[in-house]
């Protein structure tokens, strides 16, 4: 064949052709995806069998579910009247009758709008953080949102959150003044100490005074009335929001060159992460009062929030540390060479970038935290599981089990799954942007 000329020129280009029928359509799909090898075929059949078993057991129970019954006995009567087998129907009546407790706990029903509104405010507040394209003015909402949410949830005099917020103002002003007049180191110490003094000695009387002059407020709701998913969300969200600054400080501490500060950060993070949350919750329940001055005594919910916040801050610190480590060293040097000081370069250059990288990790931490709020049931708070127990302790619903767990599980699944998708989307987006 070496004699035949190797020269070849195509004169007509071939058009696209449709693939052979065996290459498209459901047949091919099934062949490729389900039965590509004997092993695969076995697996397919096995999986289908599992799916069938589960559906055939649970399906009827779900479908026959009774939605309108006021008590378990009524529900059982209805099932008996239907003449079906004994356990083949669910009593979802408990959910229709008690859903408001599962969601809001014992929050006064005429005030349900307040937590709902607080959640909305929270979303508006967090929007500029999650979507950088929004106008920066919205950051004002972000700053106000925590105090507004606090006030909406607990109610009471409006002056309390305002006077607490003023403390932050005091800090900022102190920092500005001192950093101009003295040094930035002094300014930072001042910015921490002055608000602390203010909160300890001034803010309480100030709020009381203002309240007595201009009594503005809404009905106070004690935290003991909080329960159900609302409690989980309140604990989870406040812990994440408060733990963020703490976590950032810890992460910076862990990256610091200063031996003592670094050691403290490392010890704190490792101790918190090394001990299970439930032990920390028992600590909040059993021990926190030992550590505070005699006579000081605050709300269990608040104590739990403090503990969960500390817990979350250790995890956030690790997430943020990852973000800091992902930044090239050149960014730090760029800031230095322009003459920015440490806090300026952190605030203007490093943290904005590091936090953006960390958002998916923060969302994941939040998902974990949100799931872990169920543990507060062990110290007698009414999270969804606690409410479920309380419902089962009433005469009407004593003995009901699966339906409540199913409902709670599905609610958690929906919220955690969608947040998980969101963080996945963020990760993908970051990967694209960082190419």
């Amino acid at each position: 064949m070496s004699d035949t000329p190797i020269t070849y020129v195509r004169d007509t280009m071939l058009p696209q052709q449709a693939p052979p029928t065996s290459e498209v359509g459901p047949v091919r799909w099934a062949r490729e995806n389900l039965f590509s090898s004997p092993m695969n075929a076995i697996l397919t059949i096995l999986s289908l069998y599992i799916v069938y078993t589960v559906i055939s057991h649970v399906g009827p129970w779900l479908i026959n579910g009774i939605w309108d019954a006021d008590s378990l006995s009524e529900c059982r009567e209805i099932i008996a009247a239907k003449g079906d087998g004994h356990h083949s129907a669910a009593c979802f009546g408990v959910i229709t009758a008690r859903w408001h407790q599962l969601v809001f706990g014992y929050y006064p029903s005429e005030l349900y709008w307040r937590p709902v509104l607080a959640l909305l405010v929270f979303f508006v507040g967090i929007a500029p953080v999650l979507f950088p394209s929004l106008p920066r003015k919205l950051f004002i909402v972000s700053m106000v949102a925590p105090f507004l949410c606090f006030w909406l949830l607990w109610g009471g005099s409006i002056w309390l959150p305002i006077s607490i917020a003023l403390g932050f103002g005091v800090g900022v002003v102190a920092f500005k003044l001192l950093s101009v007049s003295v040094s930035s180191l002094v300014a930072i110490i001042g910015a921490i100490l002055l608000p602390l003094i203010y909160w300890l000695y001034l803010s309480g009387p100030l709020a009381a005074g203002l309240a007595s002059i201009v009594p503005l407020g809404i009905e106070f709701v004690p935290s003991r009335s909080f329960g159900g998913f609302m409690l989980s969300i309140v604990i989870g969200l406040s812990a994440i929001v408060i733990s963020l600054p703490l976590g950032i400080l810890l992460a910076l501490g862990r990256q610091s060159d200063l031996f003592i500060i670094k050691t403290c950060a490392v010890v704190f993070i490792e101790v918190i992460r090394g001990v299970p949350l439930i032990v920390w919750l028992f600590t909040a329940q059993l021990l926190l009062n030992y550590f505070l001055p005699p006579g000081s005594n605050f709300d269990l919910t608040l104590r739990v929030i403090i503990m969960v916040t500390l817990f979350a801050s250790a995890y956030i610190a690790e997430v943020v540390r990852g973000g800091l480590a992902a930044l090239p060293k050149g960014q730090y040097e760029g800031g230095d060479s322009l003459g920015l000081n440490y806090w300026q370069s952190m605030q203007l250059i490093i943290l904005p970038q590091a936090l953006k990288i960390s958002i998916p990790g923060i969302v994941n931490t939040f998902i974990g935290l949100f799931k872990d709020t169920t543990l507060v049931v062990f110290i007698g708070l009414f999270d969804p599981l606690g409410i479920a127990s309380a419902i089962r302790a009433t005469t009407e619903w004593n003995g009901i089990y699966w339906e409540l767990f199913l409902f709670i599980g599905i609610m958690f699944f929906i919220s955690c799954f969608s947040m998980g998708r969101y963080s996945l989307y963020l990760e993908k987006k970051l990967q694209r942007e960082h190419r």
Partner: protein
Amino acid sequence: ATLDDVKARGSLNCGVTTGLVGFAAPDAEGVWEGFDVGVCRAVAAAIFGDPTAVEFVPTTGQTRFTALASGEIDLLARNTTWTMSRDVDLKFEFVGVNYYDGQGFLVPKALGVTSAKELDGATVCIQTGTTTELNLADFFRVNDISYEPVPIETNAEGQQQYLAGACDVYTTDASGLAATRATFENPADHVLLPEIISKEPLGPLVRHGDNEWGDIARWTLNALITAEELGVTSENIEELAATPGNNPEVNRLLGTEGELGAQLGLDADWAKNAIAAGGNYGELFDNNIGENTSIGLARGLNAQWTDGGLIYSPPFR
């Protein structure tokens, strides 16, 4: 002092269970009701004249004592057994007994067991963090028979385990067993064994060291008991208070005679308010756990001493 704190706060913090039918459980509106709850309300009424001035703090068997010791609650009314070590070592003060109980055993009829001594090798569900664990261990050790404990956290859990047959026997205070059995689909299929293996005087308690506060709790409970003994009920109390009769003890109780309220640092009508809050002891019992409720407990030991029971209050004078 605790009384001042409570007054300043405007409400009483009262520790109760996280939910035990008849004794303390929140209803669909989140309003707490039950026998123990009644005691809390009576104390609140005695102090403030308002039975709703109570914050109910749900506690578990594990957390209740710390809550009280740390001052988170002012009064614990959570079917808690009065024992020496709790009184002396844990440093609490029991202000009286509102229910005389004893630890019993609940078994399915089908097992054919008639005595707890036949329970050799049985699996027993117990609530952890209670005296029942210790009693149980003692009972089986003394009788030289073996058992397998299944520790559980809440009554609801225990009930579920027991009904599913994960344990042969459910043991806790007999009152709790009765209450639990009452909610079963077929209560008749289960029997309470005759043995009561312990004395379980249940009562409200406060911290050591604040005797004035302890007195208020103690005498409020006694007022409820005395009221029943003297026939003062929530129905006739207004009438009796408005038109003092010739029974001096009733008059002292209702504040129309003497200074008993002032001695406690309360209003003169403190006891009247306490009784009006949920009725006298007998009324509380009957409305929450008595024979006409789904719990269906008989008075038994908890009848007035005059009826052959142990319920006995020192005199108001």
